[in-house]
């Protein structure tokens, strides 16, 4: 599964990317919404995008709208370090799936499988 991961906390994005890669995911980490948009504009395509909600510049919710215009098939999961776990429910978009930070990697993986409808990452690259 190809995953776009966008979080302005660079270390968080890199560590999570590495952990997902060990589980067979093909991950592209980006550290801003602007960088993520550039990646898609250059033609890269992903099965799912994991977006931090609060970022400088383009935040996660606005980024979802912009990314969807570039790839209508992209599926989304949001991450939040703010407030309660159901923060996203307050957003207008009822389809938002939001996971709190610090997150459980298994929860993220289950969520990614559920929204993309795949059974897992590429077995040949899977180390865990």
């Amino acid at each position, binding site marked *: 599964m190809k995953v776009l991961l966008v979080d302005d906390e660079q270390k968080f994005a890199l560590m999570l990317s590495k952990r997902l890669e060990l589980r067979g995911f093909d991950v592209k980490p980006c550290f801003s919404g602007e960088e993520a948009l550039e990646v898609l504009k250059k033609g890269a395509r992903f099965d799912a995008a994991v977006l931090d909600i609060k*970022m400088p510049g383009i935040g996660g919710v606005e980024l979802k709208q912009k990314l969807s215009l570039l790839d209508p098939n992209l599926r989304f999961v949001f991450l939040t*370090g703010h407030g309660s776990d159901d923060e996203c429910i307050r957003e207008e978009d009822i389809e938002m799936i939001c996971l709190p930070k610090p997150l459980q990697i298994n929860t993220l993986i289950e969520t990614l499988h559920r929204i993309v409808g795949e059974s897992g990452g590429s077995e040949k690259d899977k180390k865990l």
Partner: protein
Amino acid sequence: MKNDKELFSYESLAFFGRVNASISHELKNIMAIISETAGLLNDITEMATEGHAINSDLLQTSARSIMEEIQRGFKTIRQMNRFAHCVDTPVESVRLEEILDLVINIAGYLAYSGTTRMRSLKNEKGIVVTSPLLLAAVVYHALIFSYKNSGPDAEIEIDLSQWNDKMWRIAIHGFNIKPFQTFPDEHLEKIAGSIGVGIQCDRFNNRLDLDVPTNLDDYSIQSDGMTSAN
């Protein structure tokens, strides 16, 4: 609000709440990084038990990351502690540089904050008698206004200088005021007025000037929360 006293109490509490929320967000981010790094260390251990070679570079990077985040956490807690002590004394002699440094740090936890640099001109001491909490609240709101009127890569500058023997000036610039944006609102103007702080929003030159009296006792607080010089 029945009166200004209630307004100030509410605004002080609201300010505390906002700062608390941004600090807790910062701590959550730190915990998230430590959590992912610890998870990665666990992954490496599991892989080693299954016969995979240990990547020593990754181990070293992970250990360093945890140590750096712990230091970041301690720094955040120190700022939280400094902020908590703002309410120790309603009015006291404070160094403006320290108030500005504290506010720059706590405002820096906001997702939309930019880089902020402070310059104290001529090594002046900037000691004033004021309400540390209310002054911090006024500067905090001014910085938020600056961030919201600038891009994510903007560098906000704060110049501190003695305007005259009774007044210090905090000049904030490095942003572009968007159309229809005004500062301050009525509530903040009252709060600033209650400690004798004058606020000028210069749309033409894109700057905010906060004039802070050297001694709050030189001002009398009127019933509407505004002040006048004695």
